């Protein structure tokens, strides 16, 4: 170990003076030696889970209802929070019935608030485990896991003169973040805001207030009265839409229609869309199993453990008891769904969960699967 302890080598290019870096490095080593086999953060996290240097977490400080099925969740992020550009989203990991679930939500707060709090405004969708939990059951004080903000559905550094926002349902969430942060600097904003009904329109009061104040031109489209928005009407609603930089966020149908509409007008580069992909993997019976790193693909039936399917195809699979008790065969399922051969229970991934560890010896393919092996 002593052979590698050369502070000048380790600190080159860090900008810190070598002696200071050496001391810090030494302190880190001592802390590590004190904590082994754990790491110092395992202890520090108990005392302050939001400290800087910790994995990014947040504490929910308030849950404020918006409409009957949506609520704004205010979160105090950990000190490692790096801020965001309005329009971006975060991934949030929350424990529901003891199980951690990850979902992505747009940030709805103003970018430069002094209190450092961030907000998301999920809308409870039918059968949506996480959105329903967040809107209806989450209590202030809950600790959640966070990822740094990401996404390119944002306003450019040089703001365009004329802007068009088309939002539908919870698709308004990234746009409300942009308005809260940049409305003062936007001269000409038109927004078409769609919702199933007046009651369901998120942030309606806020948008109406801007409209009354003459700060934006708002067109509300409530499906129960006006029917679903037809972009063929755009020439009537916003005659100068071709001159506007457009941001559209909502269900897939709206986004597909917008892309076609702007494409047809030869203006595809003026359109920005944000897609919230559906997160459900429909389980099937058997399926094609891909072992990513081994570059092997096999067609496995619904009764064959993925362990056996992989071994038969020559993949080097970790294995153990082959009966589901030793957890020696656990590997990450990157995408897809598997069925527990003992219980029939389905385990599946969604685009926010990252990989899900599975026991290959008791799991059979329930549709196409990709294994990180």
């Amino acid at each position, binding site marked *: 170990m002593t052979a590698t302890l050369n502070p000048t080598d380790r600190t080159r290019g860090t900008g810190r003076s070598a002696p200071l870096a050496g001391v810090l490095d030494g302190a880190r080593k001592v802390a590590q030696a004190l904590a082994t086999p754990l790491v110092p953060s395992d202890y520090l996290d108990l005392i302050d889970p939001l400290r800087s240097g910790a994995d990014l977490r947040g504490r929910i400080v308030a849950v404020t209802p918006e409409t009957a099925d949506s609520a704004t969740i205010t979160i105090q992020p950990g000190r490692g929070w790096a801020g965001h550009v309005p329009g971006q989203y975060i991934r949030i990991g929350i424990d529901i019935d003891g199980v951690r679930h990850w979902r992505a939500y747009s940030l709805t707060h103003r970018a430069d608030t002094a209190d450092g709090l961030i907000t998301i405004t999920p809308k409870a969708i039918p059968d949506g485990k996480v959105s329903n939990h967040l809107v209806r059951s989450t209590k202030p004080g809950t600790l959640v896991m966070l990822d740094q903000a990401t996404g390119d559905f944002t306003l450019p550094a040089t703001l365009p003169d004329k802007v068009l926002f088309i939002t539908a349902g919870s698709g308004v969430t990234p746009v409300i973040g942009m308005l809260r942060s940049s409305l003062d600097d936007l001269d000409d904003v038109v927004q078409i805001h769609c919702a199933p009904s007046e009651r369901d329109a998120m942030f309606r009061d806020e948008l109406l207030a801007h409209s009354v104040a003459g700060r934006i031109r708002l067109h509300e489209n409530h499906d129960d009265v006006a029917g679903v928005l037809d972009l063929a009407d755009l020439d009537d609603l916003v005659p100068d839409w071709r001159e506007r930089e457009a941001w559209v966020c909502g269900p897939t149908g709206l986004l597909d229609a917008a892309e076609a509409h702007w494409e047809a007008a030869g203006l595809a580069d003026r359109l920005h869309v944000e897609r919230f992909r559906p997160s459900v993997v429909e389980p099937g019976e058997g399926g094609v199993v891909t072992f990513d790193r081994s570059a092997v693909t096999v067609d496995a*039936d619904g*009764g064959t453990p993925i362990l056996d399917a992989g071994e038969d195809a020559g993949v080097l699979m970790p294995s153990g008891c082959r009966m589901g008790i030793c957890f020696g065969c656990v590997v990450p399922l990157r995408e897809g769904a598997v069925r527990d051969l003992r219980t029939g229970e389905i385990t599946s991934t969604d685009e926010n969960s990252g990989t*899900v560890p599975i026991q290959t010896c008791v799991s059979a393919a329930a549709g196409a699967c990709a294994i990180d092996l």
Partner: protein
Amino acid sequence: MTLAPERPTTAATRTGVNSRLSVTSAEPRPQRPELKKSGRPNPAAHLTPEQIEEIGRELDAIRAEVMDSRGAKDAAYIRKVIKTQRYLEMGSRAALLFSGVKVKGVRPFWWIGTAGLSVSKILENMEIGHNVMHGQWDWMRDPKIHSTAWEWDNASPSSQWKHSHNEIHHTFTNVLGRDNDLGYGILRVDEDQKWTLFYLFQPIWHVANALMFEYSIAAYDLELGGYLAKRKRLSDKEKAEFRKNAQEVVEKIKRQATKDYVVHPAMAAATFTGSARHTLTANLVANLVRNVWTNTVIICGHFPPGIETFEKTSIEGETRGEWYLRQMLGSGNIAGSKAMHVMTGNLSHQIEHHLFPDMPSNRYAEIAPKIRDLMERHDLKYVTGSLAKQVGGVYWKVVELSLPNKVEGKRRRDVILKAAKKAIKGKGGQGRRY
């Protein structure tokens, strides 16, 4: 041929798929013989294959009921235990910084710190480490409390322990010649284990093993004994594998020993209260207490009187139901208070743990009455007793079985003397242990 209706036929007919995945079997299962090979009675001879299948179904249902109801309460439990253990450890280690301070002739911080650290290490190894590494908490999908990521405060690296414990011991529980946990290769704890001269001294081996338990487990998980015995016959690949594992153990022991015996005493030295030496002894005592306690709990799991062993041939083509049966007959519980259950990592519910090793440990207590009822309904012995009774039973066995079995027409003294003479001549001095 019986097939479970919900199970696709491909699963049962495909060759190579583990028969223990299902309580049913494609081929009819044989009736158990009246007597085991050793001539001792077979405790499950009265059960028909159909009854064993039914027991399997009943146990599957008990498992499903608990597994389907895992939730926030269970997650809160393990997080609370982990939090308690870590605060206890930090508090105890803080106290030990002043372990040299004398008040009226005693060193109160030494006593408090040593007691706290002992309890902390026991909790960490048993209710937390052992159970997390069994995958009991993997369902929470918390990467910090996951079988694939956990490392414990013990000499044996978790990867090697998981192999020898989760895989070998839990699959082949109490199968003579397959489950090395049956006496750890140094003890004869069942009459059906072959006697050799080596076992004559097993009371000594047993006490030494208990005191050094963390290191003997590391050597055992590394399969050090097997390597030394067979090293001339091993391939280069096997030797390289062993060297890699041995290196891993050495590194782990180095880190563990540096922490307990160098860094923490050095921290105590910095308080200038003469506490370095006392911190070192505190760590030594805490590790010894943990070793003896874990050994005590573990020997009660499979060695007390009344617990069965099985022959290799008896598990061929074994179904899930038959595997369950073997787990029930091959394990024993310890009766006691809630606090004692926690301190044993709920291994006091050894029978329940062996039936469902991936069930969260806090749920064993609630299924224990159901398991006991099921076993008693089927005339199977549910082995349980107080800690003193179970430990006493094992210690007596260790002494009793250090001698060869009583056989009519043969004096035990003669058997021992014959073996001793043979050993002196240099023929098979070590003997085969199974």
